[in-house]
């Protein structure tokens, strides 16, 4: 039999005004098992806590019922009081007589009656409480960062700087991501490569960081602190540790007609290639779809010219298995496909390009070596029209596009327009905008400079269609402020295409059991207070995989995610939530119902030997709950047909005791 103490709090007049606290304390004295009952003005105050501690000692209490405010307020306070006095903290139950009683009822008699019933329900539950100890699990002191763009690089660097091991997995042959493709960065106009490539080198040289380039995550198992991840290293047909990155093979490769994806297909590369000069790792990769040697067994020129002997046509995909304590998703974004937007003639004319393609056209390492030439005839464009919000801000019931604002387009369009006017003052630049959104440090000033100093023509309106006519593009759009329809003869049209999460993210989210929104952006644990954590423990978010972001925001989020990872890896053991599911092996019939409903894959089945009454043994298949993974929702307890599954802290018996007490 438990020895229960009941402590009724006045909460000043918050409770005492509508509940006769003395009467409640008195009424509870006659409950079975209650050996002590009292009231006090502020139970949560130091004096109140001391009162509880003394009562525990004096009356040898084994369970506590605190009649006070919501358990969401002070459950932890009172659990700590219990723990300090040598009682298991989970032997405390709170009867919520403030939020759910005194504050919602006006009549004192009614309030008192309800408070007594609530207290009785709590007493009934405490009778069945058992001491609970949170499970502990080891933490693997290594983090995995999925994605090697600026978000992934920064996260990995920050984690590595704190002294922990980090692995970066990147699907492309080089890290660097989208930022490596950019020319200049707004609003300061420093060159993207100048600020990114030192970071790429730094991360490659950091002894705590390993980079798996040209690799993919194929399987994720385990739980916070103990993830097991399978990484597929795709065959690049070049020995990574032997290749010196001299680039001789890429020059000699006779296959010259491979679209260069780094330049968004605006020029060609060889079948063996190094994406760009500052690639990390600077190692050649053979594209098996184009290489003659791999396709037909004829050629082998690269192997002949390679002085290091790095070419290996027999290389196979390799699977690596590694353990991690934390995983950071940093999978980034891509511009959307413009196939559905045929009014802009993107697929009809080479001179209608996306902003990312414009970035490559102006980049010194791009297909035109940084000279602004239009793709069709390599002439200087004299009139350029930029169109904003292409595919962003579309309504959910529209046939195409994304509902959200892509956030970065206003600024990069201003940047493109400004840089064009700066380098080529004889060019006319028009920008069609719906709104110019510049909420960032020095952003609006930047946009105003484009208009006031560089003479970019901003037109409030939208382009309705683009008609290729001869070597011109007729851009038909509205000027809402002038109430006119404009027809501009342009040489180049640049579309600020909406951005969307990388396609690999959906698959990854399933592997990580991390949730996503309808747009396939990862959801954060709390939109305001936990913006870099996924609701799944041990999974963190960095960069645009969580929502559209510019570079400064991405970097700060990357740092935030890293600090959360460091906080996790710094722990030797993780304490779990003790209120987890538990299966009674003797009752379990091995039906797998619980396994199927568990949203966390916390339940597995194991074969276990049981002693039978006739002294023989029998092997039965029974459910096993991994307490470190179980979050304690209780879905399995209801699914279990044999009643073997129960939830600690919220056992069926406990809840039914509460039901009984309330209905009495």
């Amino acid at each position, binding site marked *: 039999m438990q020895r229960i103490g009941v402590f009724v709090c006045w909460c000043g007049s918050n409770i005492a005004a509508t509940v006769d606290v003395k009467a409640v304390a008195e009424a509870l004295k006659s409950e079975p098992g209650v050996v002590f009952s009292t009231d006090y003005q502020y139970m949560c105050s130091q004096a109140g806590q001391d009162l509880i501690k003394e009562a525990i000692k004096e009356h040898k209490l084994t369970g506590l019922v605190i009649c006070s405010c919501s358990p969401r307020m002070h459950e932890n306070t009172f659990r700590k009081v219990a723990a300090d006095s040598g009682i298991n903290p989970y032997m405390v139950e709170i009867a919520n007589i403030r939020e759910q009683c005194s504050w919602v009822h006006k009549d004192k008699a009614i309030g008192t009656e309800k408070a007594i019933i609530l207290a009785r329900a709590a007493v009934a539950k405490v009778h069945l409480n058992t001491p609970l100890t949170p499970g502990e699990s080891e933490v693997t002191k290594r983090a995995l960062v999925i994605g090697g763009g600026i978000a992934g690089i920064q996260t990995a660097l920050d984690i590595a700087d704190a002294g922990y091991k980090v692995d970066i997995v990147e699907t492309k042959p080089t890290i660097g991501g989208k930022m490596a493709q950019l020319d200049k960065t707004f609003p300061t106009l420093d060159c993207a490569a100048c600020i990114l490539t030192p970071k790429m080198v730094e991360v490659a040289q950091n002894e705590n960081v390993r980079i798996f380039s040209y690799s993919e995550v194929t399987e994720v198992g385990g739980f916070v602190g103990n993830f097991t991840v399978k990484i597929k290293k795709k065959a690049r047909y070049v020995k990574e540790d032997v290749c010196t990155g001299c680039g001789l093979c890429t020059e000699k490769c006779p296959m010259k007609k491979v679209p260069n994806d780094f330049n968004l297909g605006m020029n060609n590369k060889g079948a063996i290639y190094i994406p760009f000069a500052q690639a990390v790792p600077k190692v050649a990769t053979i594209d098996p779809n184009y290489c003659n040697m791999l396709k037909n067994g004829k050629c082998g020129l690269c192997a002949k010219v390679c002085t290091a002997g790095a070419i290996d046509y027999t290389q196979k995909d390799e699977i690596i298995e590694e353990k991690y304590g934390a995983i950071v998703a940093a999978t980034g974004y891509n511009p959307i496909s413009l196939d559905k937007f045929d009014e802009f003639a993107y697929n009809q004319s080479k001179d209608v390009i996306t902003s990312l393609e414009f970035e490559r056209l102006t980049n010194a390492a791009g297909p035109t070596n940084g000279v602004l030439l239009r793709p069709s005839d390599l002439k200087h464009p004299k009139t350029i029209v930029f169109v904003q*919000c292409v595919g962003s801000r579309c309504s959910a019931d529209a046939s195409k596009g994304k509902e959200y604002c892509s956030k970065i387009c206003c600024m990069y369009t201003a940047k493109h327009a400004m840089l064009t006017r700066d380098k080529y003052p004889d060019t006319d630049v028009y920008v069609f905008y719906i709104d110019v959104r510049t909420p960032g440090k020095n952003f609006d000033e930047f946009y105003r400079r484009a208009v006031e100093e560089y003479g970019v023509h901003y037109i409030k309106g*939208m382009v*309705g*269609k683009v008609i290729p006519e001869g070597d011109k593009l007729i851009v038909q*759009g*509205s000027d*809402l402020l002038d109430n006119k329809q404009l027809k501009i003869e342009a040489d180049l049209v640049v579309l600020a295409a909406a951005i969307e999460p990388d396609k690999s993210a959906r698959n990854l989210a399933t592997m990580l059991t991390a949730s996503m929104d309808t747009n396939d952006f990862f959801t954060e644990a709390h939109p305001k207070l936990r913006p870099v954590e996924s609701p799944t423990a041990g999974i963190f978010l960095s960069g645009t995989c969580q929502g559209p972001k510019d570079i400064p925001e991405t970097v700060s989020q990357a740092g935030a995610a890293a600090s959360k990872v460091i906080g996790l890896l710094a722990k030797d053991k993780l304490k779990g939530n003790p209120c987890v599911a538990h299966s009674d092996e003797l009752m379990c019939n091995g039906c797998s119902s619980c396994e199927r409903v568990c949203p966390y894959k916390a339940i597995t089945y194991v074969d276990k030997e049981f002693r039978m009454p006739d002294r023989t043994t029998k092997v039965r298949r029974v459910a096993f709950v991994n307490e470190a993974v179980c979050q304690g929702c209780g879905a399995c307890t209801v699914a279990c047909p044999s009643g073997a599954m129960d939830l600690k802290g919220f056992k069926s018996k406990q809840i039914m005791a509460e039901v009984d007490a309330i209905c009495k």
Partner: protein
Amino acid sequence: MDKLKEQILRTSGVNTLKCMRCGKCSGTCPSYDEMEYHPHQFVYMVEKGEIEPLMKSKSLYKCLSCFACVERCPRNVEPAKIVEAVRLMVIRQQGENHLTANDIPDLLDEDMPQQAIVSAFRKYSK
């Protein structure tokens, strides 16, 4: 809400509040230069309840009903349906100024052919 506006919203099935005022409808309209009020103005003016100027405007009959604005509107507002609804409103109101059968004898003219009387009767006695 204004009765005219309510009627237009009901017959067109358009929610004018969805418009983000980008002007793509007017950017795309092939009869823009013929029109006094342009597609985006139709949406905006209906939203503000300024229906009468629209009903009097010739723009109503310049709209080709090509539905390019409907096809390209990023917010799926369907401006052409608004134009159509205003047009319908004008037609309906005109339909109301018919004659009753009792009014006809006073208007009869001795020279009027019998056939004209019968057809007028048919036309106005709906």
